[in-house]
């Protein structure tokens, strides 16, 4: 299977960039002619991953968030959202619905659940003190 296009986006971990990131990724994904519903799903999943990097990875300190996007010839969009923040000590726990380390800030704890629902596949790699990479895949073309 071959990659037909790819891009890399790097931006500062400020909340203003959440909207920029989801619009940039959805504009890139348009090349696979997804439906509007699929684009809305992608924007939502990207928003969750980037918000997690800003809020939890960097804890609102400044760092760089990177998004790599790949379009595969079989119609699959692959996204890697990476930060070099504090990392996640217990990934399984972090991915449980409604789990949040910041309930006092009205965080819903639904970020990973939204990503898992809106994308076909979500994998998380993280090392405490080194950062987190969220890998997401969604088929945009050729789905039965």
């Amino acid at each position, binding site marked *: 299977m071959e990659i037909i296009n790819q891009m890399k986006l790097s931006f500062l971990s400020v*909340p*203003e960039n*959440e*909207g920029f990131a*989801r619009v940039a990724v959805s504009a890139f994904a348009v090349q696979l002619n997804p439906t509007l*519903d699929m684009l*809305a*799903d992608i*924007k*939502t999943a990207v*928003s*969750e991953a980037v*918000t997690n990097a*800003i*809020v939890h990875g960097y804890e609102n300190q400044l760092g760089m968030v990177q998004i790599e996007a790949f379009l595969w010839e079989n119609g699959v969009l692959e996204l890697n959202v990476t930060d070099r923040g504090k990392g996640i000590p217990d990934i399984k726990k972090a991915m449980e619905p409604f789990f949040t380390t910041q309930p006092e*800030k*009205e*965080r*819903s*704890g*639904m*970020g990973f*659940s*939204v990503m898992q*629902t*809106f994308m076909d596949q979500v994998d998380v790699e993280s090392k405490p003190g080194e950062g987190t990479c969220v890998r997401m895949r969604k088929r945009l073309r050729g789905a039965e």
Partner: protein
Amino acid sequence: MRHERKGSAVTAFITGELDHFSAQQVRRELDALIAQPGVKTLILDFGEMTFMDSSGIGVILGRYREMRSRGGSVCVRNMNAQVDKVFTLSGLRQVIQII
């Protein structure tokens, strides 16, 4: 944020995108509305809202808890499909009335 007051109900019209970036401002404006004397029902109108992620769920849940603690309620209306999907996934349909 545009709003309408009818009796004990106040309707807030959320516009644009509700994400982590905008959540703090929306939260502040909603809290000012429900702090008005005599408000028993907060109606969130999402007809002009183009995007919401789980940060919006946190805002809605927070206002729901606040209204419930004072014997009031929260309702929502005019959700688009994307917002409805996030809303449903979070389980908010079980506690918040859609009108």
